[in-house]
């Protein structure tokens, strides 16, 4: 037996002092209240019997003193916090990894797998022995420790209560690495995984996780797997007809039985399409909805069982997407007349085109984009971003127009020999076989980007000046076959979209459980992200993109800048993870070649801290003393 609380010498001093006080109080008797009686002889008669038992009375008083001293001894011993030698060495260090991934939201066990897991962990916490230490961590796309390594049940229960489900998969390898790092060097290490077991292979870029001497146990949660899910959901506008869009989604039956499901597509909250499908066991069914129109902002897909019941995992039965916002761009065309240019601009109904003669520049009003066709006048405010087509040599252009090159070499056909195919203005285009009769070589500044280049020099460059972005094409499209290709209007509209930052390649939704790079238009260092549940987070912005590990499906709102110049953008996030939608509980959990065993040694209610029992003994003795005093047994 060892004292882990107040040292023995201090206890002896305290005991001597308190014991002396108790004995003095015992010796000092309270003066009794004097009361007159008319005839004491009658009292003498009844007291005669009591006097016969005076020895017993004295014994009772002595018993009372002994009882008080016993209470004192028990309290002092409790202060000492005695532990058995066996208890001191048996202390375990336990990390509990509670799976909070999307599959744990399954309701095959009431109220949900996650709640059942919490209940299991609470039972384990109550069974902790006095010298055990435990850490509770939430395991989802990240691993979040919710408590310190402690033996305090209240702290651990608070940590368990703080666990929230995530619409993301679990990064089991990361969680195991965290647990093994935490337990390194500690005696009797143990990892308890509380999960449905659908955790995947415990390996990451650094290879498989090695447990070493850490004991791995597993509390299995979940009983069945009846689930259908939307595993993909994507939407985009047509580049040449932005009023229309197309949707691609994929539904999957992850269970062993066939299902009849109803798939609903809602645009701005209104039902756009309703389809009844039959999904065989483990069947994946892609669906494509072309030429949709009507919705201007939000799209949502919902999946429901045709018989009106719900499957075991509602979290993957809906998916969200946001359509890129449309706004009318004001375009000024400074041209002496170019049919190909004017025709291409007619393709986009969201363009507000104003054509002016070169002498009439600048036109009235402010513009988002100005196209200089064959001219390069000095740029005045209100011009906006600029597209130069076949700029003449001069000093007013923001770049240098070089020598004229012509297609006069029989061994070389003038055109684009090198193209930056990933540049936004070249999206969906193919310019490598464009033939050019003559062109001016363009020379931008150092930071400008050469998008298309011939052997004779750059023909297509892009850059940014104080007035805004610019793109320059070094030849007249009428002196090439570029104008006859579908690539021409695409190039033109891509450029305008790039100028007005309207991205036709917009990512309609993010996938939960991954780190999102959300475009943030301002140069702010932080942005405020409003989550689907209404809570707000401040997230860092790096290189024009807000970085956030999203784990909840739904619509998000990102705000950058302050109140006066705040810019807000919306985006959606979806689970879209077939692995998480496959909610069948595993039969076994294997890590590092070892199968996880069952949890043992956490028997409910058996605490090895003796001071608890000592205090209970004090309470019992006090209760007995109280009872006997009021029954006049010990007085």
């Amino acid at each position, binding site marked *: 037996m060892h004292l882990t609380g107040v040292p023995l010498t201090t206890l002896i001093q305290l005991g001597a002092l308190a014991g002396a006080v108790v004995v003095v109080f015992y010796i000092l008797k309270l003066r009794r*209240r004097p009361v007159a009686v008319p*005839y004491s002889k*009658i009292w003498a008669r009844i007291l005669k*019997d009591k006097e016969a038992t005076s020895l017993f009375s004295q014994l009772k008083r002595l018993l009372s003193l002994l009882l008080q001293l016993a209470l004192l001894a028990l309290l002092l011993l409790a202060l000492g916090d005695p532990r058995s030698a066996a208890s001191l060495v048996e202390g375990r260090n336990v990390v509990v990894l509670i799976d909070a991934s999307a599959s744990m939201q399954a309701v095959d066990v009431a109220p949900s797998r996650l709640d059942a897991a919490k209940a299991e962990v609470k039972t384990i916490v109550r069974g902790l022995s006095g010298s055990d230490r435990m850490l509770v961590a939430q395991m989802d796309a990240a691993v979040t420790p919710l408590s310190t390594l402690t033996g305090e049940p209240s702290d651990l229960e608070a940590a368990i209560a703080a666990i929230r489900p995530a619409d993301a998969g679990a990064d089991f390898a990361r969680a195991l690495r965290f647990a093994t790092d935490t337990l390194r060097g500690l005696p009797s290490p143990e990892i308890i995984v509380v999960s449905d077991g659908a955790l995947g292979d415990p390996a990451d870029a650094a290879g498989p996780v090695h447990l070493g001497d850490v004991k791995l146990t597993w509390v299995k949660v979940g009983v069945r797997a009846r689930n259908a899910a939307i595993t993909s959901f994507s939407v985009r506008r047509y580049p040449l007809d932005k009023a229309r869009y197309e949707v691609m989604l994929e539904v999957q039956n992850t269970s062993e039985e066939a299902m009849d499901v109803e798939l609903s597509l809602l645009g701005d909250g209104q039902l756009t399409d309703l389809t009844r499908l039959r999904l065989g066991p483990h069947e994946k069914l892609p669906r494509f909805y072309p030429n949709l129109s009507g919705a201007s902002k939000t799209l949502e897909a919902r999946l429901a069982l045709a018989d009106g019941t719900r499957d075991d995992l509602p979290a993957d039965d809906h998916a969200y997407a946001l359509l890129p916002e449309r706004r009318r761009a004001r375009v000024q065309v400074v041209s002496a007349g170019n049919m190909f240019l004017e025709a291409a601009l007619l393709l986009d109904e969201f363009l507000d085109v104003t054509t002016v003669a070169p002498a009439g520049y600048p036109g009235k009003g402010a513009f988002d984009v100005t196209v200089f066709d064959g001219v390069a006048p000095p740029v005045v405010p209100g011009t906006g971003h600029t597209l130069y087509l076949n700029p003449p040599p001069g000093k007013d252009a923001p770049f240098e127009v070089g020598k004229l090159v012509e297609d006069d070499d029989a061994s070389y056909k003038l055109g684009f020999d090198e193209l930056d195919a990933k540049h936004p203005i070249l999206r969906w285009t193919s310019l490598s076989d464009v033939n050019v009769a003559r062109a001016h070589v363009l020379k931008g500044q150092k930071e400008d980007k050469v998008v298309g280049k011939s052997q004779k020099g750059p023909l297509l460059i892009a850059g940014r000046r104080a007035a805004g972005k610019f793109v320059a094409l070094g030849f007249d499209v009428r002196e090439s076959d570029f104008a006859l290709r579908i690539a021409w209007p695409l190039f033109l509209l891509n450029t305008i979209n790039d100028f007005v930052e309207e991205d036709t390649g917009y990512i309609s939704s993010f996938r939960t459980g991954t780190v999102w790079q959300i475009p943030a238009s301002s140069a702010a260092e932080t942005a405020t992200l409003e989550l689907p549940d209404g809570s707000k987070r401040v997230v860092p912005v790096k290189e024009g993109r807000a970085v956030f590990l999203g784990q909840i499906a739904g619509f998000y709102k990102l705000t950058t800048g302050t109140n006066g110049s705040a810019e807000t953008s919306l985006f959606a996030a979806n689970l879209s993870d077939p692995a998480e939608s496959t909610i069948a509980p595993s039969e076994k959990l294997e890590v590092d070649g070892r199968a996880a065993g069952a949890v043992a040694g956490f028997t409910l209610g058996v605490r090895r801290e003796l001071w608890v029992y000592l205090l209970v003994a004090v309470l019992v003795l006090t209760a007995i003393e109280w009872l006997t005093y009021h029954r006049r047994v010990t007085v």
Partner: protein
Amino acid sequence: MGLLDVFKRATAPLSRRMGRTEASEELFDDEFQRKLDYLAMVSRRVFSGAMRAERRTKKTGSGVEFADHRDYVPGDDFRYLDWSAYQRFGRLLIRLYEEEEDLSIYFILDSSASMGFGGGQKLRQAKRLCAALAYVGLANLDRIAIVTANDEISGRMQATRGKARIFRVFRFLTAVKAEGATDLGDAMKTFVAQHKRRGLAVVLSDLYDPAGFERGLNVLRYNRFEPFVLHLVDSADARPDLRGDVRVYDCETGDEREVTVTAKVLERYAAAYEEYLEEVKRFCVGKQVSYFRADVGVPFDELILRVFRRGGFLR
């Protein structure tokens, strides 16, 4: 129970000790005197009826019933010479008649401190009973004497007769205070020594005698007095308002005892008290001493009627 009640209970014994003074002015008011007149009318001379036969003297007197003869000696009254006997026997004989004596009634009032305990109800009731019985006696032309006794004869009212002397009785009784210890044995010895004329001795007492109540009554019996015990009892004495650890002391002797009063102890006390009362009664009945237990809780009118009925005083 409120805090005030607790305080009242805690201080109750003290207030009782403080409240021994009697309202003597109201003791014998007009109403009381009217009651006495009524009692005198309805009562009969029980004392004389009961006593006269036993109190006939052998000496000549004013009686009419012949008792005996004795020889004439010079100096005897010639009127009592029996001339018929002289003619028959030739001797001068004097006729002896029984003398009719008036009855002597002694009221022995216990004036010890215990009689004043608990507000003095016992002494007050004893005084009123004494006055009522004395009035009846005076109305019947008996000789009435009153003594107060504790451990001695502490007060004495000379024997008197006639209804008009009732006010003297009142004055005497009003002046009586409860004080001193009880020792009826010694007090009665003094009493019998001072009163040669035997008669009825009405003892009004709570009989809280540390030396034993029997001694005093036996002294009266052995000296041919006729004891009549009016035992004053207060039901509050049987159920003392005590609880917890207390030090009880005798209000007369100061004898102290420590006791922890519980409900069980109170039960045992009540049983012991009842046993003491029964002991007194048993003694009186066994010794053919007239005994009546007068509970002070009973209203005086009812109590005096009970006394009269019990003693056969009512017609």
